[in-house]
């Protein structure tokens, strides 16, 4: 391929600029913004809190969340946070750390009330309270039947959360570094910490910036772009997982990835579970409501892993529509009032992208890669763990999808992602504020700055090699086909080898844009490297886990194995040797003993 753009590669990268802050938040979605807000409120207006994000805050993927956020407010029927706790543990197929889930479900009530006070435009009941509706896996009285627990703002709850928190951050004068891409952690003493800040690339100029701070929070979201069909935004490339992983820190439970049942066919983005919460049903080629066979009690509102596997099996047995690889979502009977008032965005998607009318047409859907249960291991206050023994990395925090607390275990319940970012973003912000004075003064990590400079120079210098998009497309294809809804030893072994081969090929990438202004071609290359790292950890963890649990379904080990596998995976790579290792950590069980999981 030829090189386009300015003929000479830029000789010298501009010198690194340095910023001294009290705390740095990386990522401007719900978790990052709530943490920044808490930091400002706890430390006062003088505190130098910087939010660094590769996107403008209002573009963050929190804004794409649709159906709602659960909290046992009991506004429309009896509910208790303990029921929510049980549902979360059961939904996670008992891999959930129950102390963490207890914190999340208990804090949920106060957190949602706080968001209302901050201005969130929740839908209301006739009495003017926050309205609530049903959602998959959420039940009354420990599994008796569906309960109305999801608080919502039409079908754009995430948008409302993102806007409200962004607005409040403006009010509290949080400093934003918009369109800065973080490339490394400052870890001058090695992976055990302490963290001394981050190094970031300013996208508008290609200048490098060193942000020095005693405390750093990663709230960068997931890595759904590792799969071919995904609900995730183009920008969700696992940056915040890969950066610590490259430094030798572990990633927890990466084998657990959620495939959401109702992705729009071929496009991948979601039709909210709220469509089924409001009464929508799934139909196969015979027009049969097949979820009645797989989940007699909860039917179409069984948890997501169960519904996605059911769809997969219908398709495998030839009952996909026209024998193809999709089924139908039927919302025709919901009527114009529900579709236009409670599900307006969903109805709009169906009209815009399929040219179909939800009132009269069946909607083609297929499972889509949606959510990483795994990620950077943390405790219940967002503090990052250095290993499976629970040792903390001083000054390093993580919250939201990038983190693994673990409140979702092997499968996340619908709405609990928004709850996770809110509860743990906020808790991490509080903890950072509390610990700040006791954390060491940040020092310069000259090695990290030099290595980032070398990495960028290397990518820009090449005049031949493969385009990042070519390798990325192959990665997405192989991960979706061989590390997807169903897995086997054979598929995973092939996938592992394919990812390893792609990693080798990615050492010679061709970046065609050699300029300094918004070099998004360089950005694509950097993000590809992160995706490959996340894929490596995911496949290795999946290959080792010889059981089926939640989002990890093995055809060759079809049963859950609590004797052998009721434990969390910690995958890490030695930066010096490049060799991977897996370690394990017991699950915290405080109240609910593992039982068979039926819906």
């Amino acid at each position, binding site marked *: 391929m030829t090189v386009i753009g300015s003929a000479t590669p830029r000789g010298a990268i501009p010198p690194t600029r340095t910023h001294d802050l009290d705390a740095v938040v990386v990522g401007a979605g719900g978790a990052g913004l709530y943490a920044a807000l808490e930091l400002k409120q706890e430390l006062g207006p003088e505190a130098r809190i910087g939010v660094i994000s590769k996107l403008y805050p*209002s573009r963050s993927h929190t804004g*794409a969340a649709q159906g709602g956020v659960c909290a046992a407010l009991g506004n429309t029927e009896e509910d208790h946070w303990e029921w929510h706790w049980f549902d979360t543990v059961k939904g996670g197929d008992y891999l959930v750390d129950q102390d963490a889930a207890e914190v999340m479900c208990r804090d949920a009530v106060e957190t949602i009330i706080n968001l209302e006070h901050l201005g969130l435009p929740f839908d209301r009941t006739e009495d003017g309270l926050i309205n609530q509706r049903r959602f998959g896996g959420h039940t009354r009285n420990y599994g008796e039947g569906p309960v109305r627990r999801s608080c919502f703002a039409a079908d754009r709850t995430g948008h409302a959360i993102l806007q409200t928190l962004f*607005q409040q951050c403006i009010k509290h004068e949080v400093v934003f570094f918009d369109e800065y891409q973080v490339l490394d952690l400052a870890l001058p003493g090695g992976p055990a910490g302490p963290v001394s800040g981050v190094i970031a690339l300013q996208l508008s100029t290609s200048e490098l910036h060193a942000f020095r701070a005693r405390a750093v929070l990663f709230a960068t979201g997931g890595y759904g772009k590792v799969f071919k069909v995904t609900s995730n935004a183009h920008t969700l490339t696992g940056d915040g997982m890969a950066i610590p992983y490259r430094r030798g820190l572990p990633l927890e439970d990466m084998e657990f990835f959620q495939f959401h049942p109702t992705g729009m066919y071929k496009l991948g*983005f979601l039709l909210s579970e709220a469509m089924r919460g409001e009464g929508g049903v799934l139909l196969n080629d015979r027009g049969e409501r097949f979820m009645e066979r797989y989940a007699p009690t909860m039917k179409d509102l069984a948890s997501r892993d169960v519904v996605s596997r059911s769809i997969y099996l219908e398709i495998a047995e030839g009952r996909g529509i026209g024998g193809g690889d999709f089924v139908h979502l039927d919302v025709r009977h919901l009527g114009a009032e529900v579709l236009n008032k409670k599900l307006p965005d969903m109805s709009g998607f169906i009209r815009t992208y399929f040219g179909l009318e939800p009132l009269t047409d069946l909607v083609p859907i297929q499972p889509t890669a949606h959510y990483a249960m795994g990620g950077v291991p943390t405790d219940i206050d967002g503090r990052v763990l250095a290993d499976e023994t629970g040792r903390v990395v001083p000054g390093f925090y993580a919250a939201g999808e990038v983190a693994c607390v673990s409140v979702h275990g092997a499968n996340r319940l619908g709405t609990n992602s928004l709850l996770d970012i809110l509860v743990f973003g906020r808790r991490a912000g509080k903890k950072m504020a509390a610990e700040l004075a006791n954390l060491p003064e940040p020092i310069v990590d000259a090695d990290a700055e030099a290595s980032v400079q070398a990495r960028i120079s290397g990518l820009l210098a090449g005049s031949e090699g493969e385009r990042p998009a070519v390798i990325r497309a192959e990665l997405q294809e192989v991960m979706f086909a061989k590390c997807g809804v169903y897995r086997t030893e054979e598929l995973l072994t092939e996938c592992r080898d394919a990812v390893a081969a792609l990693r080798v090929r990615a050492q010679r990438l061709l970046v065609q844009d050699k300029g300094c202004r918004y070099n998004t071609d360089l950005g694509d290359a950097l993000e590809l490297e992160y995706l490959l790292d996340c894929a490596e950890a995911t496949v290795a963890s999946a290959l080792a886990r010889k059981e089926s649990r939640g989002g990890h379904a093995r055809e060759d080990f079809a049963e859950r194995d609590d004797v052998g596998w009721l434990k969390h995976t910690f995958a890490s790579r030695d930066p010096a040797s490049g060799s991977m290792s897996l370690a394990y950590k017991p699950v915290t069980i405080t109240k609910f003993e593992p039982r068979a999981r039926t819906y």
Partner: protein
Amino acid sequence: MDVTLRIRRYNPEADEAPHWEEYTVSAEPTDRVLDLLHQVKWYQDGTLTFRRSCAHGVCGSDAMLINGRNRLACEYLVRDAGTTITVEAIRGMAVVKDLLVDMEPFWDSLKQTMPFLVNDEIPADGRERRQSQADRERYEDTSRCILCAACTSACPIFWSDQSYVGPAAIVNAHRFIVDSRDTAKQERLEIMADPDGVWRCRTTFNCVEACPRDIKITKAILEVTQEIGKAGIR
């Protein structure tokens, strides 16, 4: 089918002035214009530069002037756009590179309008504030804004004078002015009554046509002027 993309390119590090380039890509009728831009960037010319993220019309990153009208590239399909598609940056904002404009003045305008709820009182029972469904409905439409700038960059008043706060900022002011929970209405209305505020609108409806969310922007602007009148601000 083959689609011809005509893209207005500008690289400040290499070009003296913007110019048009043509690319041919293979497309399905259901492909989004964003998919075609990706085809060019990924497989033909890596220097092509634009913003995008969610790719389904909710993040607001990819407003562009496509076939002469402001649209989100991820919401406009080939079946509607045809086999020759022109794409250029939205207007009224400085082009930084290709389809990417300087958004900073847009955010500054937004921040002028106090875009946050003001109310420090918390109900005695510690629960949510009550709000009737009718009161909630008053800001339903304007709370749907995704800050994509399609409206403001389609406004002829804004083209001629960028000190005008613009329709997006007014939409976001409206969202709080009519929220029954807010306690800063007077202050908000005074900001909107500024010479560079809501009175500059000449109701050309370009903004309504441009809005990918179909927000009734001129209705919101009218309601803001009515509220200013009711508050007796001159």
